[in-house]
């Protein structure tokens, strides 16, 4: 596979023109995020991703991890890469300076994480866990707990994990059985088994800090009875250093389809006296804490969709420029690269259009995260909090599904060589397959979008978003050069409006409604993508008028928007039809007929 080339120009364009980096840098605490600094950070991250993470990606896939007598051995290069990543301070990128981080906004960390995932998703999953855990500890841990654990998680000196899943409790955490019994000095002993724990065991750091959901003896049933515990691999001695091994064993690692470099562990807690752990936050409030983290984690998984899609696209484009095969269908001339074939060009342009649409959505939403967190005016912060909540399932659900499609199509561009592991796109396809599943499956995201985000609030925030679409469409109407984009965008807005009306009118028809949840998710993703492409065209046109030093790039973006409207946007209409009509038929089909 060709070397990764960080798409800095695309990223910078979206940061500046769609996500309003300048505005975000004006938020309290974000003053460091100037154009020059962000450019320097992205440049260096690109170098690191290409120079350190990319070279060990295939090795990680080929070697995978091994379990030897409860020790997990990671692929060659992992320890050195982790040391470099940690020492370079990348983990603390967006974490608060008072805990050792650099405090940069989410808008800046998002493109950086895109680069880590593009070059080595299996590796990047490790430091990602530290960021998530740091955020959980900041929300829920006591000052004393923060003093003991937080700084080393932010610095990466110790590694982190999230322990939710059990054999009988996956999408449904209410079925969690792990139990915590009070022990001495306010601590607890935990007993039970957790599965699918990424980096649950390894030797890359002197300690691993597990955050675990478990039930206290007096816990109410269901999800309201889950508490959060911090359970270290090594208990700390009097000096606060890793000492005695805790009662946690890695009893197996999964043999997976992809992300082989990431050890996916089954952890057994309490085979002996019980694993010693510390309650984080209030009893029975564990899931609430986890939910705040999960929203953030969901967003990151959406970024994985773009990241893997981007890498696959780069590889496919490079191949299509080099590989000579077939005759030009118009002129009959042979000896040209396959990029001249309309079908191949269509695939590549389509991939690029979807990548830019997703990136537009994700980076804009990253900026909304920052506004929601930091804006001094409550009504502005609240508005963008609602926007983030509404779009989170779309960011995760839609961008992961499309990311998989992109990896799949990249293999198609490669032809037979794509199916051969050596070219590397097969690995991207395999690595991508998990992203529509973990952190809440597409189905779960869709149910969240429909039930919690639209129906529960009578579609209020959705209607505000639709109004934003209309505003953009109004800017396009009567535009000298981009007028043709107005109607397609308005059509998307109308489709969303009519869909929202229909859903609310049929609210009581639960089974049929939720049969259409995933088509709804796709519809919303495509529509949001159309909006971002329209905004992109407006921004590109404005830049062309101001300074025409690189017309081909900017004109390319405008034509890409047209391509999206012509080929992607209409698919939303099909989903609109599906979500209304699938339900009733589904109910009539008996399980016995399958």
């Amino acid at each position, binding site marked *: 596979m060709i*070397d990764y*080339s960080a798409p*800095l*120009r695309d990223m910078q364009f979206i940061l500046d023109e769609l996500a309003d980096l300048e505005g975000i840098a004006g938020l309290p605490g974000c003053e*460091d995020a*100037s154009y*020059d*600094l962000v*450019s*320097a*950070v992205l*440049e*260096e991250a690109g*170098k*690191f991703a290409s*120079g*350190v993470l990319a070279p060990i990606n295939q090795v990680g896939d080929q070697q995978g991890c091994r379990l030897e007598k409860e020790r997990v051995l990671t692929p060659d290069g992992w320890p050195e890469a982790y040391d*470099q990543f940690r*020492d*370079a*301070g*990348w983990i*603390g*990128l967006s974490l608060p300076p008072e805990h050792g981080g*650099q405090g940069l906004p989410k808008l800046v960390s998002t493109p950086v994480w895109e680069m880590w995932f593009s070059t080595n998703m299996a590796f990047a999953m490790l430091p990602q866990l530290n960021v998530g855990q740091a955020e959980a500890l900041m929300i829920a841990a006591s000052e004393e707990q923060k003093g003991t654990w937080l700084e080393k998680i932010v610095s990466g000196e110790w590694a982190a994990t999230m322990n939710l899943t059990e054999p009988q409790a996956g999408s449904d955490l209410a079925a969690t059985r792990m139990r915590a019994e009070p022990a001495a000095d306010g601590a607890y002993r935990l007993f039970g088994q957790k599965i699918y724990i990424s980096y649950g065991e390894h030797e890359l750091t002197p300690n691993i800090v597990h955050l675990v959901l478990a039930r206290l003896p007096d816990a109410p049933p269901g999800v309201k009875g889950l508490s959060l515990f911090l359970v270290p691999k090594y208990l700390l001695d009097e000096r606060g250093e890793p000492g005695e091994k805790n009662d946690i064993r890695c009893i197996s690692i999964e043999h997976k389809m992809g992300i082989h470099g990431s050890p996916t562990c089954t952890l057994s807690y309490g085979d002996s006296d019980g694993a010693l752990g510390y309650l984080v936050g209030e009893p029975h409030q564990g899931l609430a804490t986890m939910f705040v983290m999960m929203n953030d984690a969901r967003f990151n998984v959406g970024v994985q969709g773009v990241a893997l899609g981007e890498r696959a696209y780069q590889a496919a484009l490079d191949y299509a420029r080099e590989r000579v095969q077939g005759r030009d269908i118009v002129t009959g001339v042979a000896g040209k690269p396959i990029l001249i074939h309309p079908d191949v060009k269509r695939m590549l342009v389509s991939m690029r259009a979807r990548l830019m649409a997703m990136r537009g959505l994700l980076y804009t939403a990253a900026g909304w995260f920052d506004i929601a967190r930091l804006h001094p005016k409550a009504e502005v912060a609240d508005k963008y909090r609602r926007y983030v909540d509404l779009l989170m399932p779309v960011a995760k659900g839609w961008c992961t599904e499309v990311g998989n499609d992109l990896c799949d199509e990249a293999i198609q561009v490669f032809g037979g060589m794509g199916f051969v592991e050596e070219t590397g796109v097969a690995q991207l396809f395999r690595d991508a397959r998990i992203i529509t599943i973990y952190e809440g499956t597409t189905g779960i995201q869709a149910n969240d979008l429909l039930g919690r985000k639209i129906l529960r609030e009578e579609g209020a925030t959705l209607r505000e978003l639709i109004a934003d679409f209309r505003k953009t469409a109004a800017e396009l109407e009567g535009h000298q050069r981009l007028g043709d984009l107005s109607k397609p965008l308005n059509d998307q807005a109308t489709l969303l409006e009519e869909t929202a009306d229909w859903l609310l009118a049929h609210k009581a028809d639960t089974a049929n409604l939720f049969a259409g949840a995933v088509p709804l998710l796709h519809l919303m993703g495509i529509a949001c993508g159309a909006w971002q492409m329209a905004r992109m065209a407006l921004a590109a046109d404005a830049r062309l008028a101001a300074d025409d*030093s*690189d017309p081909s*790039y900017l004109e390319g973006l405008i034509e890409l928007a047209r391509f999206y409207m012509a080929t992607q946007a209409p698919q939303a209409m099909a989903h609109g039809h599906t979500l209304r009509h699938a339900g009733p038929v589904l109910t009539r089909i008996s399980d016995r007929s399958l």
Partner: protein
Amino acid sequence: MKALVAVKRVIDYNVKIRVKPDHSDVDLTNVKMAMNPFCEIAVEEAVRLKEKGVATEIVAVTIGPKAAQEQLRTALALGADRAIHVETDERVESLGAAKALAKLVEQEQPGLVILGKQAIDSDNNQTGQMLAALTGLPQGTFASAVNVEGDKVQVTREVDGGLQTVELTLPAIVTTDLRLNEPRYAKLPDIMKAKKKPLSVTTPAELGISDASRVKLLKVEPPAERQGGIKVGSVDELVDKLKNEAKVL
């Protein structure tokens, strides 16, 4: 001892270079630029000298347009203490660069000047040598090893015949070759701190030199496309073709 490190902004070595349709120059529009790889090695060497306690201050300098300040910020993030930008929009040529650097050597009085052996855009391999001539300082070029001891520096040079080690009395000029070191990656906290390090701007005029171009670029052509090879039937045929067609014998 102060170390002066000169860096140049060039096309990123990964970029596939295209020639302008009118063949007047290489097409630089919106092309990715970066620090010259040999200059990265120069910065790394200076930083290592500082870590060893040999260099007490590292001053990074570049001659180029406003955008070249990005490369100075990179040098500052890697460990340089301050930076000097000699701002010019003219094409930077070896003699002009050497003259500007000679003025800065006069001003800054460094113990060591470290430059990349050549820039990957012009490939001239002249600036360090010209600077030595202008300042009268000793030079150790194509360095694959640098060892400072007291007021002397031993430079191991990669030459056609192998390795040659010369001993120079400081202050001296060193140009770096590929195998001298492997440059580090900048750390995020250092990238953030680099913004606050001093960066002063001057011009060739202020230094009392002219930055006028002395070289006229007539034409740029991409390398000739590879022709297919042919098979010959015998050694005699080969010799004949080498003599009469390829004209290399």
